[in-house]
């Protein structure tokens, strides 16, 4: 396959940045999207040009490090991560536009690399059960109905890639935040801190500069792990019930 790649290049956070076009030939349909970029980078490196920087690590669709806004969609045309997207999803002669995540809370560091540490800070605000190592009950002490455990697992599958934010016209992080709030609100282990967790995580999400949710469902449609927006509904319930009985006045 022969392709034209329209790629966002930006030297660093203070650089304005802009698109640059590259021609790339000899692309096989079996390559993953990132392997296609590897080929481009090898060509650039051989010519002494600075390779296109992008985040990636496991290349198995689970670490959540890869991103890329491809032809106007986070992670490209398939509902998967960019590392699992293969070139058989594209056609010979196609022009592919590649951009970084666009959100105020995810500043661009270089080319296609963004800073997603805002997600870490949301988790630090309360995305945990406060138990120290040791001194916990036996794992089978509290039976959990399979349906509940499965629902918690559905939410827990979030890989923290940020596609939900990139897909949202408001750059809202509601899907990400609600996935963790849901997981822990569903499980018995999460009950003790249920209310404070919802309050604190939502407050941190707002403080990071993410936008509000207007229920367009774009996040769910683009989530590579199929995290459902029912989690957002659940988080809203959790949040309201927490706020009306809040000790934080």
């Amino acid at each position, binding site marked *: 396959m022969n392709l034209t790649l329209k790629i966002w290049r930006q030297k660093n956070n203070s650089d304005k940045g802009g698109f640059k076009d590259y021609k790339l030939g000899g692309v096989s349909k079996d390559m993953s999207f990132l392997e296609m970029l590897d080929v481009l980078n*090898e060509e650039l490196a051989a010519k002494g040009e600075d390779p296109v920087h992008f985040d*990636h*690590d496991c290349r198995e669709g689970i670490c959540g490090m890869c991103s890329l806004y491809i032809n106007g969609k986070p992670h490209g045309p398939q509902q998967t991560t960019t590392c699992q997207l293969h070139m058989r999803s594209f056609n010979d002669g196609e022009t592919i536009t590649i951009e970084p995540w666009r959100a105020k809370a995810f500043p661009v560091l270089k080319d296609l*690399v963004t800073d997603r540490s805002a997600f870490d800070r949301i988790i630090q605000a309360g995305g945990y059960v406060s138990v120290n190592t040791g001194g916990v009950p036996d*794992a089978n002490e509290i039976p959990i109905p399979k349906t509940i455990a499965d629902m918690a697992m559905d939410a827990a599958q979030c890989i923290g890639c940020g596609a939900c934010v990139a897909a949202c016209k408001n750059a809202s992080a509601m899907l990400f935040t609600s996935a963790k709030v849901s997981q*822990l609100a569903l499980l018995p282990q999460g009950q003790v801190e249920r209310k404070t967790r919802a309050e604190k995580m939502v407050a941190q999400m707002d403080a990071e500069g993410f936008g509000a949710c207007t229920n367009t469902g774009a996040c769910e449609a683009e989530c590579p792990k199929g995290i459902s927006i029912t989690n957002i509904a659940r988080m809203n319930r959790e949040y309201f019930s927490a706020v009306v009985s809040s000790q934080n006045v």
Partner: protein
Amino acid sequence: MILDSKIPEGPLAEKWTKHKFNVKLVNPANKRKYDVIVVGTGLAGASAAASLAELGYNVKAFCFQDSPRRAHSIAAQGGINAAKNYQNDGDSVYRLFYDTIKGGDYRARESNVYRLAEVSVKIIDQCVAQGVPFAREYGGLLANRSFGGAQVSRTFYARGQTGQQLLLGAYSALSRQVANGKVKLYPRTEMMDVVTIDGKAKGIITRNLITGAIESHAAHAVLLCTGGYGNVFFLSTNAMGSNVTAAWRAHKKGALMANPCFTQIHPTCIPVSGDHQSKLTLMSESLRNDGRVWVPATVATAEKLRKGQIKANDIKEEDRDYFLERKYPSFGNLVPRDVASRNAKYVCDEGRGVNETGEAVFLDFRDAIKRDGKDIISAKYGNLFDMYQQITGENPYEMPMMIYPAVHYTMGGLWVDYNLMTNVPGLYALGEANFSDHGANRLGASALMQGLADGYFVIPYTIGDYLAQNPAGKIGTDHPEFQKAEKEVKERIQKLLGIKGEKTIDHFHKRLGKIMWDYCGMARTEEGLKKAKAMIKELKSEFWSSVNVLGDNEELNQSLEKAHRVADFIELGELMVDDALNRNESCGGHFREEYQTPEGEALRDDENFAYVAAWKYLGEGQEEELVKEPLIFENVKLTQRSYK
């Protein structure tokens, strides 16, 4: 040099309990006067950092990824072992210990492995308390499945994403300590060197991957939780960023590297599809619970298959060879990884491989789907089937999967004593980065167990013993050793950037990988290894004269990051070859063709090689010195491993 493994006296089952009583303690008020550096935030690193911070130590945690949640432990699929015996099927701490020692082909320390089995049960309790959503039965209790090398069901799992859920559990505990101010996090930061003062580890030098700033960090102890070095093979199931740099720099500062040639080749990976391939993808071993491994019975049928004249489903039952079930009736498709891999290689070498390259075997779910229905199989393995389809474009519900062995895990690593301390005082290695628990072959679902055992339940006890004997209080980076180490790091960076040769970094990495795979992979010979050694030496000098590292230090520079890592892989590769050459026996994943039984199984030499081969760095260009730690087996009898 004599290595002191510090194995406690007394009966096996009492060693850890006694040791916990005998080690020195740091009182709660004094813990806050000690600083600990943790490098790496995978299962071992995150659990250690969180647990030590909970105890009151001041922790600095470093990772090269943009968030600690991305460490490669996250990609572990199948599960985590624990001797809970919830299934009432005869499991016990002793059985898990025995299976692990046997699975490792009797090349691991009894005392460490027993402790691992002992604390395994607490790991599951801890993870459940954190809100890890393990799979459950309809009654609400935890579900188990079976894994290779065991005849009991002791593997706990969270769909095919167990590593993810366990890591996110440890990450949540870590995040809580970050919020409490007890852990300071340094993401996108790579460790470039260990600093030793008067022979003790006192800190590290790091590079900020965004700004390029070279910085010193001091602490009373340094924990390396930096994973394995499978990427020395270029193609492996490891993440692209997984590297040996931290461990290798520690090695060059005096820490011994043990059994580096013990690498695990995992039998169920998606076969290589072309030269562009950047990494290999594992299909969980749990698939071997229900999938049957086979190739055509004859070369002629396999040829037709490769030419596309027939399809897998056209081949009749009697023309199929379920070679694992045939050769190993009692373990069948669930033989340990090294055995399954080697046998896949044998049938492909015979010309019975099933894909275009001839390097693939089938993993077939037809019978399982017929027996249990598609829904049940999909509930168990749905995400793996989807992943397979995504990568290969084929539907495994209708066509058998194609798999082939690939590098997956490294049992070798930094030598540590019973306390997980390397021979450099104050420098510890946890998880895959150390060598201690898996011998010459790791059993499935045991890596997660070891990473979390080390971090949650071993280091919190053993580190106190060292710290209590060392003065607390402020520790600065003004010692000349820090300046010296910083200067060396900067010089090395300038050297790499200054070569400005004509070849790319990947060019060298790929060549190294091919040498390692061909000569130090699934089967090794003296002749091949000698050849590999010469080739690696040549590659190294070529690298340092003709590599082209682009850009500058003072920016986000992925070429420079990669160059450091590849340079270290080349040196490690040479040591792996030396280690494989030295070990004139076959054991576990280390298969020397000269040493095999008439049936083609690994032939150990317990008389001469029942030892840990620990290597000491003596200086640039010099052969490393071999230091032996004899392995003493007081509880298990060394026998030829049999899974028949």
